[in-house]
């Protein structure tokens, strides 16, 4: 796992991908910081967090698209899968490499806290919980990206499908209770089920707690368990490939 982690992490910065990811993230984050915090002269980072998590939808797929798709296409997966390492080790190595790049991005924006601190009195605990939420959500998106990348040989398909799914998870909260209103009579149960499902998947509802500075067990468990689920699915997909 260590070898794969190190190779993957270095690979992000050997190609432009890591730099593009960081540049896009920093550009958008700084823009939000200037508009939301500096212009309105507030130390509340609540809106900053909910806005900045939006950029994840677009940059996380960049980070994860090549992980397994490229290996499969260039047949380098033959090296990994015939080496004396477990498949879970391969998946975790790649996962942690992507998570580390994400961590660099997130931690670097903590510079803003210093700026806030020199002009006002930010509440550190609230801000750190916000950062924790941002990070957990990022890792969840990464696990989705890894899973979709393991399903295809094409980086483009991996990226676009990751984007579509994260996008849906993100905006599904604005669909609240639409289906049960729409579907009357015989199909009402279906509408209710769909609403429940969307309510469950809607990431915003879980993420809001973090942005408000509330550390709840449920949303933490939500992100961590779903991340683990997608990593497990990725392992299964790769294992299953041998049996095709």
């Amino acid at each position, binding site marked *: 796992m260590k070898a794969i982690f190190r*190779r993957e992490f270095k*690979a992000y910065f*050997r190609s432009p991908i890591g730099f593009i990811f960081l540049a896009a993230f920093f550009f958008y984050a700084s823009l939000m910081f200037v508009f939301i915090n500096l212009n309105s002269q507030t130390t509340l980072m609540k809106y900053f967090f909910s806005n900045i998590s939006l950029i994840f939808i677009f940059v996380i797929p960049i980070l994860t698209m090549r992980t397994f798709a490229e290996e499969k296409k*260039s047949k380098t997966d*033959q090296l990994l899968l*015939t080496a004396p390492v477990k498949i879970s080790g391969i998946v975790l190595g790649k996962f942690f490499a992507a998570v580390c790049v994400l961590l660099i991005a997130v931690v670097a924006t903590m510079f803003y806290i210093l700026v806030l601190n020199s002009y006002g009195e930010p509440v550190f605990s609230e801000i750190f919980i916000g950062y924790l939420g941002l990070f957990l959500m990022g890792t969840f998106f990464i696990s989705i990206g890894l899973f979709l990348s393991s399903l295809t040989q094409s980086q483009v398909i991996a990226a676009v499908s990751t984007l579509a799914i994260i996008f849906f998870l993100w905006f599904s909260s604005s669909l609240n209770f639409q289906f049960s209103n729409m579907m009357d009579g015989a199909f009402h149960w279906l509408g209710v089920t769909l609403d429940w499902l969307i309510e469950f998947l809607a990431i915003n509802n879980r993420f809001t707690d973090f942005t408000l500075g509330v550390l709840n067990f449920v949303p933490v468990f939500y992100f961590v368990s779903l991340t683990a689920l997608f990593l497990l699915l990725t392992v299964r997909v790769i294992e299953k490939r*041998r049996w*095709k």
Partner: protein
Amino acid sequence: MVEIKNLTKKYGDKLAVDNISFSVPKGEILGFLGPNGAGKSTTMNILTGYLSCTSGEVKIDGYDILDNPIEAKKRIGYLPEHPPLYMDMTVSEYLDFVYELKGATEDKKEHLDKIMEAVKITDVKDRLISNLSKGYKQRVGLAQAMVGSPEVLILDEPTVGLDPKQIIEIRDVIKKLGKDHTVILSSHILQEVNAICERVIIINNGRLVASDTAENLGKSISNENKFQLRVAGDERTILDALENIAGIKYIKSLGRKETGSIDFIIEAEPNMDVRTPIFNALAQNSLPILAMQAMDLSLEDIFLEVTQNPAEIDAVYESVSEDEVEMVASVSDSAETETQDDEPEAKTEIAEDVKITEDMPAAECAETAAEEEETADSNIDDSAAEEKEEGDPS
């Protein structure tokens, strides 16, 4: 060391590997022969744990590849058909990574330096793999398989894409490795297998069709008594001169390849050396011999031997061999125009070939024909290389 029992692999309905069993003792170099699509790569992928078999079992040093994959894989070095190289790394970075990945315990610098020296990639070690030529990539792939000194080396067509000089070098490396490793090597070039392997397995359509030592296999279908002859003079006169030599099974005229000369294929009875009588007979009639060359057997010849029923063999044999002579002739001809002339002929020969092997399924025939062209090409490379090695072209 390697044990394979009743190995079967199905892709949907298609049977890729059909009930293959064999075992390879420690320190043996086993050649794995078969045309494209015969199931060589599939078998190798199963041996290394990349694919799973539908039924059967694979044991490496007593460890089952499915039940105990980590232990089994520790003992295997694998060079797949396409070397699994990361294009964005330099050669030494890549080998470093493989070293870590395999959890090798040797002294890193010394071990990797030794491997790079053995496959002669030391001078490109700081270059990006994406910038290397195909031959170098192939060698980096071989180096990768050697990292960690695994006891079993599985090499899928290790000399593909190399020039003749490199082929000889890599063969030497493999031979050396065979002294303290078990090597399984696939190829569709007979010379290669002959030169390196102690034992040969031939598979076709996923089935094992022959398994023997290279020597025995060579002997049973050997054709050392068949050779090609180029004589200056008139066809009629030459045939008259050769007519009375005892021990000639048949003479077949191939027509004019070079101005003022005729080419023949001559086959002698078993255990008869007719070369001296032929020389004497022609010399008496002042018909100068311009070339006399033993005919190399290609994999296809052997392959057809073991896969065809006996009645068909002779017919197939002739046309295949002719085809080969055609190729040899076009190489030895210095005039380019003649080489061009030869090409359409070669094609018709192949077409004939396909006709003869009518009994085979159509797809297979086409494959065999394509394969023939390819192998004939590589044969030329090989014979050229071997001549070079001996330092005596004649």
